[in-house]
């Protein structure tokens, strides 16, 4: 056994060891916690229980949280804000975004013009690492990672979100009890 240098114990340390103060202190602390948890009090931060009863009590997720993606819509017209510029798809390191645009003819100032509008938007959440680079790339604040965090599905196909899911949000079963 390699020898280690330890300081010579003083008498008070020796006595402490003899009366097992080290063990008793530890036991005292756990007992304090036990009582603190029952009375929900703690000397340091004022509460005894630190866990959240998750499905019953929903956690409050930070506003900046990168969760489920969403395509924002204009609150008045309910048109999508997306201009099909494809910047998000370019910014994504994982290539999980597919922006499918179509050309439509619109009349601007009496003249027919071609305009690119969003047709379909595919977002593969199974490959996404929620880095938010796409959100930062979007010029119109259309693509946003929301506070929604329950993304589990029963199939791989369920991870691929289309435009409707991105706009309306996916239906999730919320277990509350």
């Amino acid at each position, binding site marked *: *056994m390699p020898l*280690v240098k*330890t*300081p010579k*114990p003083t008498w008070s*340390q020796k006595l*402490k*060891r*003899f009366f097992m103060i080290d*063990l008793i202190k*530890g*036991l005292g*602390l*756990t*007992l304090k*916690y*036990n009582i*603190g*948890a*029952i009375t929900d009090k*703690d000397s340091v931060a004022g509460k*005894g*229980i*630190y*866990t959240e*009863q998750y499905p019953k009590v929903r956690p409050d997720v930070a506003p900046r949280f990168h969760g489920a993606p969403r395509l924002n819509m204009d609150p008045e017209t309910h048109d999508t804000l997306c201009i099909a510029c494809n910047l998000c798809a370019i910014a994504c390191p994982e290539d999980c975004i597919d922006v499918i645009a179509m050309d439509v003819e619109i009349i601007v100032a009496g003249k027919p013009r071609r305009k690119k509008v969003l047709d379909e938007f595919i977002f593969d959440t199974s490959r996404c690492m929620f880095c938010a680079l796409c959100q930062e790339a979007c010029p119109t604040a259309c693509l946003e990672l929301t506070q929604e965090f329950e993304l589990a599905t029963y199939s791989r196909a369920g991870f691929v979100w289309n435009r409707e899911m991105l706009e309306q949000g996916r239906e999730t079963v919320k277990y509350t009890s």
Partner: protein
Amino acid sequence: MLLLGPVNVLNDLLLRFFSQETINFFIWPLIQIGLVVTLVALWVAYATYLERKISAFMQARLGPMRVGPWGLLQPIADGLKLLTKEDFIPEKADRWIFFFAPYIAVASAFIVFSVVPFGPDWAVIADVNIGLLLVLAVSSVGVLALILAGWSSNSKYALLGGLRSSAQMVSYEVAMGLSLIGALMFARTLSLSGIVGAQGSDSIWFILYQPAGFMLFLISGIAENNRAPFDLPEAESELVAGFHTEYSGMRWSLFFMAEYAAMVVVSAVAATVYLGGWYFPFVYRLETAGYHNLYVIVSLLVFLVKVSIILYIYFWLRWTLPRFRYDQLMDIGWKWLIPSALINIALSAIAIFLVQALNGYRGMRTIESLDRGLNLTATGKGIMIVIGFAGVFIIAALLARINWRSRDFNLKTQRRNIRLVNLPKGKPAVSVSEV
């Protein structure tokens, strides 16, 4: 008397089919056994619940909360889950031994309950006159289950776990038996009911005479049960799950139940021998007032409370202390516990001798009678208690002296401190010698 009503009705009913003898010697014991096994199984199940709750509280969380109010139905849900799980037997395992090992574990743990006096009168299933010996003997059969389980699984982790458990149990069995002898000197009987009676007639708990014995018994009991900080056979961070690595489903839960049942057994024995069993001051007044059954039930509750307190100590230690290493465990067993137990026996003998010798010295009266156990007067008790508590320190000091040269003892010194250096900034590398 109300309580005995249905009993009488049942007795009458049974009389139609059997003779009174068969009923007394066969049917009633069976009913008793069935009742006790059910209750003990429930108790064990709720011991797991309690452990989970207590550990949760110690860790600033809530523990099981989902099944039933405050998660009270959790043990039942667990049992159902384990029953429906696949009972997996590894391909290369020794099938039959693998099959039966859990049953040996459970049986050995449950048989012991037959001699545990839960209370006076009808709360004892069998008052065997060698009760304590039976407890020690049967609980040591439990180790066989662990070895067999470890061996038959054909897994290296299980094997190591089995080996560890056999070594551990063999060495701690000795300490456990020896530590009880001190208390037996006062009780002068091996019958567990007799030990309770001795404490009752003396109106004292033996823990006061034998604090060192109690501690030794508890420590070796914890080790015997493979509980933390001595849970080496199943140390999950080293041996995955030790001897039951390969077990799953109900068979695994049998081991689990055996562990908890063994824990309850050791607590029950500790409560019986050192904490007066079901005896509690003034409860006997119920008996003299004529409420016999109430007396039995209150005594039973007293016993349960005592056992629960010791169980709490079990949980408390487990969730506070780190785990010993294998060689340290052996060190503690052979170098500390067994010598301590031997010294404790010697000290108890000296104490008894001293108290007897002092009887009559300068008109001092220390002994009331020697009919049953050692009935002492208040002075005698005082002397005995003083010697008992002094004994703890005498033993500790002696052993510290004996073990002083032991490598392990010297390693376990007090905390060290580390140096704090404020290194210069921007200086690429600093050599060791410079600081």
